[in-house]
Structure formats: structure tokens, C-alpha cells
């Protein structure tokens, strides 16, 4: 597989949200607006690239039976580092994402890539895989957030185009499931041709 394909496969063929259906909790919870979805995606991208690289380096020295706890400790370390740094230097963004940053630890995309890719491949390939999957996740979350924001709040990236409220259900949990379901249908229709 070429280096370029390592990145593109995360966008379409192995899109974490629409094809692998991984990381559903942050997907449904953070996509109340396009900006929130995008910020969550970027934070996950950052952790994913670093943890993929670290795990591809240490994987040969880890006994098979304790690999999962080892990976979790590595991932949790990166997430906590990210949390400290964001809290110190970008407190406003930290406030918006608040609760969801620690949730990256249990995001199965990150552990999933460590298991499925990073522990069998080199540092560079693992970093590219992290970038690809991370970008796929970011794009999916942004699109889902945008759809929910347009229908639910009548705005795009915070810019209001109608007065008052939209269809409020789309901002709440049921709208997340509905919007995600229809987006998966459209995505499958477009990609399986």
C-alpha cells in the first residue's frame, strides 16, 4: 500500500464513522454544531497520531498478554498531556470540549488503530495511518455537526441564516441518531457504486 493510500483509506474505504462505525459515543455527543464536531475530531487526530507512533515503537518489547493495558496507559498519558496543555494555553476551547477530552481515552478508534495497525507497522506508516483515520473522523464529525446545526439551530459554523430556533430535536440525542443514520445511507450509496 502506497504512503498516499494510507491517508486516503481513512477518508473513504475505512472511514471510522460511516464505514467502521467506531467511536459512536463522541460522534453522537459532540456533534451539536459543526465547530464542536470539528474540534473533537482534531483533538482525536492529535492523540491518534502520537499514540500510533509511540505504540509502533514500543510494540516489539511488550509481551502479548499485557498489550491492551500497556496501550491504554500510553493513550491515557497522551490524552492527559493534551488536557493539561489545552487548559493552560487555550482555556476557551478546553471549556467547550470539557468533558469529551478525557473520553478520547476510551474512544475505540484510538485503541482500534493501535491493535489493528500500529503494532504491526513502522513509525512513519503508523503516523500516516493516524493522520488518515483522524482526518476521516474529523470530516465525518464536521459534516454530521453541520447537518445537525443547519436543521436544529438554523446556522452554519455559528452563522445564523434564519431567525429563532430550528427543529430542536436535531440538537438533542434523537436527532443525532437520525442524522447519522441518513448520512451513513448516503455515504454507502455514493461509495458502493
Amino acid at each position, binding site marked *: 500500500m502506497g504512503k498516499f493510500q494510507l491517508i486516503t483509506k481513512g477518508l473513504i474505504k475505512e472511514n471510522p464513522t460511516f464505514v467502521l462505525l467506531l467511536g459512536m459515543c463522541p460522534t453522537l455527543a459532540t456533534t*451539536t*454544531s459543526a465547530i*464542536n464536531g470539528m474540534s473533537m475530531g482534531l483533538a482525536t487526530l492529535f492523540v491518534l497520531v502520537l499514540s500510533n507512533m509511540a505504540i509502533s515503537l*514500543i*510494540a*516489539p*518489547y*511488550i*509481551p*502479548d*498478554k*499485557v*498489550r491492551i*493495558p*500497556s496501550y491504554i*496507559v*500510553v493513550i*491515557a*498519558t497522551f490524552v*492527559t*498531556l493534551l488536557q*493539561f*496543555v489545552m*487548559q*493552560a*494555553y487555550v*482555556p476557551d476551547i478546553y*471549556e467547550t470540549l*470539557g*468533558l469529551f477530552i478525557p473520553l478520547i481515552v476510551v474512544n475505540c478508534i484510538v485503541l482500534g488503530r493501535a491493535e489493528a495497525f500500529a503494532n504491526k507497522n513502522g513509525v512513519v506508516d503508523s503516523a500516516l495511518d493516524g493522520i488518515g483515520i483522524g482526518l476521516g473522523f474529523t470530516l465525518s464529525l464536521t459534516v454530521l455537526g453541520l447537518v445537525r446545526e443547519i436543521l*436544529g*439551530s438554523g446556522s452554519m459554523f455559528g452563522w445564523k441564516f434564519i431567525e429563532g*430556533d430550528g427543529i*430542536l430535536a436535531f*440538537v*438533542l440525542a434523537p436527532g443525532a441518531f437520525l442524522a447519522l443514520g441518513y448520512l451513513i445511507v448516503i455515504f454507502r450509496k455514493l461509495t458502493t457504486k
Partner: protein
Amino acid sequence: MAVQSSFKNMTVCLFAICIVCSSLLAGVYALTKAPIDAAAAAKNEAAIKEVLPETAVTIEEERTVDFEGASYAYNLAYDEAGNTVGCAINVAPVGFGGPISIKVGFDASGVIWNTKVLSQAETPGLGAKCVEASFSEQFKGFDPAQKKLAVKKDGGDVDAITASTITSRAYADGVALAVKVFQAIAQTPMPLNE
């Protein structure tokens, strides 16, 4: 995997990973502690300034007052001549998604100057609108002696946020509680216009 899963290997490996990770975290924690505290203090100070009259130039250090079994933090503020011009009280009523932390500012006569949400976890797009001006503006200059701090549904004078009665009710209750705390502070041995 190259390394065998023997008891010794597993123990050594997990031990080494945990040691490296925790020392890394301790290091970064020490490095970022000062900026994090500074950011929190700056935010608190900005919030105090926002809820008090512009004439407040000196803001006193935080004090606490006990009221009906709970403790509330507040700051007094003075103008250039040293007269008390206001008081900012922290309250945290429970909304739909947990406590909503609000700072309520009063002028010396007990009229609400302004309110500001410090943190909240209300539903985005619904209750979270309590931070927006369209809702919080109505508390500016709200005189608790003249109007009632309750949502209109409950016979008060506060306009609720559409479809977020619980949040609006909690906000109004929180501000009403701050009014009571303010009155308690005003009656303590250390009067406001000390």
C-alpha cells in the same frame, strides 16, 4: 510479538511503562500548573469586573459567608474613594445537566448589576443558551424589591428560554438565592459600607 509473556516480562514491562508515563505526566503538570492557575484566576477576575459597576476599581480578596447551612464565596469591590460599590456572589443552582455556576453582581443598594455564567453543562442548543445575552440581559438592573425572581410560568418576571424551563428556573432560583445571600452579607458584623 518478540517478547515472551512470562510473569517476569509482563511485570517489568507494565512497571516500566507506568513509571515512564507517570513521570512524563508529573513533569508536564508541573510545567503547566502556573499557566492553568493564571488562566483560571484571570477568568474569575474578568467575570467579577463584568458583573460589577465600572466604578469598582479595587476588588477585595475572596471571602466566604455561611448561609442556611452552605458556604458561598463573594468579593466586595470599592471605588477610588474607598466606598463599597458592589458585591459579586457565586452560586451554583442545579440545572438540567448538573450545577450551573453563576456569578451575580450587586450594586451597593442591592439591585442586581449583571450576572455571568462561569460554567455549565446544559444541553447545547437549548439550556446552554443561558450564557447568551438574549437570556442573561434581562437580569441587568433587576431590582429584587420590585420584581419577582421566577420564570413567568411560575408567576415571576423572568422570560424563560424556549423549551428549557428547567434551566431557566434553576437560573432564576440561583439569582434569587444570591439575593438572600447578599442580604445576609449586608447584615453581618462587617457591614458593606465599612
